[in-house]
């Protein structure tokens, strides 16, 4: 990495992007501060709910809720990325092209389904807990990834693909060395949308017994305790901002690699 950076600087196009990772770092630090600091901010939340018996959510520590939230979103993301990107690749190959319209439609169908409905349908089959919410997140997060993989691969200049073939690259070499790197920023944008949406959607898991950052919000609504709601929402928002800005930096980084000017 450093090697390529110095080589590029020799070409006179060196772009230092030391500040590139500053934003995700900033949100990440703020997230950690909140997770660690909320239990000690009794006075602050007391001001929000002066009459409540307790103002800090106690049923589980925030770091545990956060890690379970991340686990759910992470598992769903890994599966959706694997399935979504693979599906996008498969239907843009010669053999799978017949399935292109079908896959595009299925993926949009996932998006038209409200996540609550998926949960309602999944609970009788998968029971309460974490599994139905992972199911819902996967269905929900698949569309942006499939759609962007398709768009990214289809946007690769036909002349570039043809000349790759004409140079004697095998289909696999063309896919890995030409098509995927060129489509990567668009695919990454799809993953970013998918993950960001799912961070918020995962909170719904609390309604079917998955313990995560949605818990304080649901408990707060049931008990009429605004302080709980704010605590859950604040951490979810900071988590979303951290990951979103992290993806943003990754996309910028990749764009620079593609057209470093």
């Amino acid at each position, binding site marked *: 990495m450093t090697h390529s950076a110095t080589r590029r600087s020799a070409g006179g196009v060196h772009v230092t992007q030391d500040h590139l990772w500053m934003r995700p770092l900033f949100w990440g630090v703020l997230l950690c501060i909140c997770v660690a600091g909320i239990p000690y901010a009794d006075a602050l939340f007391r001001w929000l709910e002066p009459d409540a018996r307790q103002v800090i959510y106690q049923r589980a520590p925030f770091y545990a809720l956060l890690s379970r939230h991340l686990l759910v979103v992470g598992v769903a993301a890994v599966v959706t990325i694997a399935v979504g990107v693979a599906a996008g690749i498969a239907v843009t190959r010669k053999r799978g092209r017949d399935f292109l319209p079908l896959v595009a439609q299925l993926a949009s169908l996932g998006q038209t389904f409200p996540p609550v409905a998926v949960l309602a349908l999944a609970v009788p089959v998968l029971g309460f807990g974490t599994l139905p919410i992972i199911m819902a997140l996967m269905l929900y997060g698949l569309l942006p990834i499939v759609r962007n993989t398709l768009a990214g691969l289809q946007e690769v200049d036909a002349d570039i693909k*043809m*000349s*790759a073939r*004409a*140079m*004697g*690259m095998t289909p696999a070499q063309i896919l890995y060395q030409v098509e995927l790197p*060129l489509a990567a920023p668009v695919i990454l944008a799809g993953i970013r949308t998918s993950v960001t949406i799912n961070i918020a959607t995962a909170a719904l898991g609390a309604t079917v017994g998955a313990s995560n950052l949605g818990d304080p919000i649901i408990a707060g609504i049931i008990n009429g305790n605004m302080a709980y709601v704010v605590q859950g929402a604040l951490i979810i928002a900071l988590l979303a901002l951290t990951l979103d800005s992290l993806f943003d930096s990754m996309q910028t980084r990749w764009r620079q690699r593609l*057209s470093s000017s």
Partner: protein
Amino acid sequence: MIELSQVSKRFGDETAVDAISLKVPNGKFCALVGTSGCGKSTTLRMINRLIERSSGDIILDGQAIEAYDPVKLRRRIGYVIQSTGLFPHWTVARNIGLVPRLLKWSAEDVQARVEELMGLLGLPIEEFAHKYPHQLSGGQAQRVGVARALAADPDILLMDEPFGALDPITRVKLQDELAGLQARLHKTVVFVTHDMDEALKLADHLVVMRDGQIVQQGTPLALLQRPKDPFVESLLGGLERGLKQAALSRVKDHMSSLGPTLPSQYRIAADCSLRQALSVMLRDHTDRLTVVDQHDVPIGELSLRRVVKEAQLEKGATRDA
């Protein structure tokens, strides 16, 4: 040696290429010329099997092209297209080294070859090796395209309107460089263009195509002297044909030795084309020019009468032949 016999390509009901036969001997430069949609690019792509033909035979060095694995076949055939097709996420050096790397050359060999080619195509290594394609001008990018095609030293080079998108000055410069390269490397070249001047300038063998068929083929001079029909004639420039023919011959081949008469004050270099000489005569209102060598020493004389007379003789000779 590339040999096409009765090669056709049909897309559905449409016949893109219709039973064409063509031979390109080793080391020769063959230009396919025609209006857009005449099947010349399709013909080119059938040679490296980017497009599979519908019928007919294509023979490469005595072997039918089916005998070769398509991927391996393409690695030994250079290919240059108008839009360059360079990989935007790779540096110039990496782009050029593509085919040698596919052929599993060692890193040092690839590096040495890339440097050699960049030198050959006038791309200073320090300046260009680490640039990306979008940082290059059109002419520079096409030089990289040509270098990439030549990287594994293929015997055959296919070029699909490589200079079509360049400005006229860059285009002429690259044409001259390609002619120079070809004089040294002796590749077997099939070159597609719709620019007849480009074809006349570069080709040993000229093939005129229309509606998927070959209308006429032969040496540039033969076609200029005897266009088969009005279509070929109009492609060859109609009334300008005489000048295009003059552009193919050099002053030094037509000059006479210095005579007893006073040498003309107007001079022309021996390496100029006859067309340029005629232009100088028109500009300077003279019918005689003194031919000089590269050191500006007079070595002969060129007169309008003689040029016209020789053209007459040549025409007579081809008629008799």
